[in-house]
């Protein structure tokens, strides 16, 4: 069951793909739209749930932060990080300019 707001809107796959920064081939859009509709129809069942009643639950896992302290690593770690870069010049990561 789709909510009345959603039921008349066709999914704009290209818009979502642009938001997600994913290139989708034109030939794949139709089947992706079909999959998307099917999945959304399935998850839309939560719209029928009445949000009332006790929803207090114990929280064991709380976000715990720690001090951001720089730790000296040996050169192998640095080299490994550099080695994972797709494109580099010396120790510099190469990316396209944005200006």
């Amino acid at each position, binding site marked *: 069951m789709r909510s009345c707001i959603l039921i008349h809107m066709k999914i704009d796959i290209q818009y979502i793909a642009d938001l997600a920064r994913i290139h989708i081939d034109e030939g794949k859009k139709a089947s992706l739209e079909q999959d998307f509709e099917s999945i959304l129809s399935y998850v839309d069942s*939560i719209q029928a749930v009445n949000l009332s*009643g006790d*929803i*207090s639950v114990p929280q064991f896992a709380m976000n715990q932060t720690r001090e951001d302290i720089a730790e000296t690593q040996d050169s192998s770690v640095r080299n490994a990080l550099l080695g994972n870069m797709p494109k580099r010049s010396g120790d510099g990561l190469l990316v396209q300019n944005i200006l």
Partner: protein
Amino acid sequence: MAYWFRIFCSMDITKYSLDKLVEGLAKKEFSSVELLEQYKKNIDLQNGALNAILEVFERAKDSAQKADELRMKGDHRELLGIPYVTKDNICIKGEIISAGSRMLIRHRSVYDASVVKFLNEAGAFSFARSNMDEFAMGSSTEYSAFGPTRNPLNQKSVAGGSSGGSASAVASNMCAFALGSDTGGSIRQPASFCGIVGLYPTYGAVSRNGLIAMASSLDQVGPCARSVADAEYIHNILSRHDPRDARSVPLSERKREKRKGRSIGVPRNFIENDGVSVEVKANFEASLKRLEKLGYTIVDISIPLIEMSLPVYYILQTAEASTNLARYDGMRYGTRVEGSNLLETYKLSRGEGFGPEVQRRILLGTYVLSAGFFDSYYKKADTVRKMITRSLLDVFETVDVIATPTTPTVAFPLGSVQDPVAMYVADLFTVPANIAGIPALSVPSGLNSEGLAYGLHFMAPHFCEDALFSVGKDFEQTV
């Protein structure tokens, strides 16, 4: 340095439980090198067909030799010299970690995951990485960029997923045990399909540091093992507070009541689902009878909103995954496909690096988080999640554990499930545990006429893994 060992040529040490392996190594009945060679032999014989293992590390033999040398010098650490396999999304320093994806096909870890550190401290060593659905998104290990993993029980069938490689490796005696990750059933479901034991620990019990994140409020690392005792052994080593995981629960906060009773709740309405096969239902009922004979009390229960677990899961998990996978933009690491400008490079890199299921889930997650839909999807799903958790905790006031089949069907044939929603339904019984963050265990419960495995699934309250191990060990002896 020379060391002596006696080889029991007639005994297949690759089938040994952890206890027997630890004892055998300690008594020098065999060496770690010999044990590793036997596992590698099984890999050579079977992996061509099963594709469970993506890579055996070059340093594996050195690790085994070092363990044997340390033993000769008096090192008596409990898991010294035990070789294990890690899922391809768990960091091993210096080794490739690809998460089953072309996006990370050449990426090397720069540190060990915490779970790897803990096992290494106990003397074990990871010697191979196992296949998986890409970025842990899948229930069959058919979505790996490196080919599907097959089920050792029937090679025309899937191994399950996303930890299919780990489960298949344990089931085919390629390792002592394997680590997997579970976000919606990804350890338990392949464990059930492959006829082995799989555990999802309480959320926050085991560190996620060094696990490639899929859905941060649902992910846990757990063991794929030959027996409940083996799963318990590994869990007890891994379960500790880790300050490197922001959601790791301190030991003092892990409150649990002692469970004295032996009552098992069965949500019959939930199990009487058209998608659950007749043979799975029959096996489940037979399993309950075996438990009753052991003195357990079976109690019919109702869990309000439990049927909403799967829709809630696929909203929250895809939303969290879309955020976690935003980092793979082709810049600092991973596959890069150059476009005419930076934005195009992001899109082409992600379009090329991610497979179809990952793209589908990222798009869905982006959609449910987008303006205009956030309240009706993500926020609502988060509230329903709390309601489901409340329902489960209320039920645990009346029973000690909850039992269901692990999966609605036995392992399905490769290529037979093309509809994404049909694939998602494979997680029907496993997902509630992840939603609530409660521990859950899958134990083998027999084979069908085609040799495919059934699994029995138990859930317990937070930090009550002991209750799972207790009922699991009892049940294991009846099968």
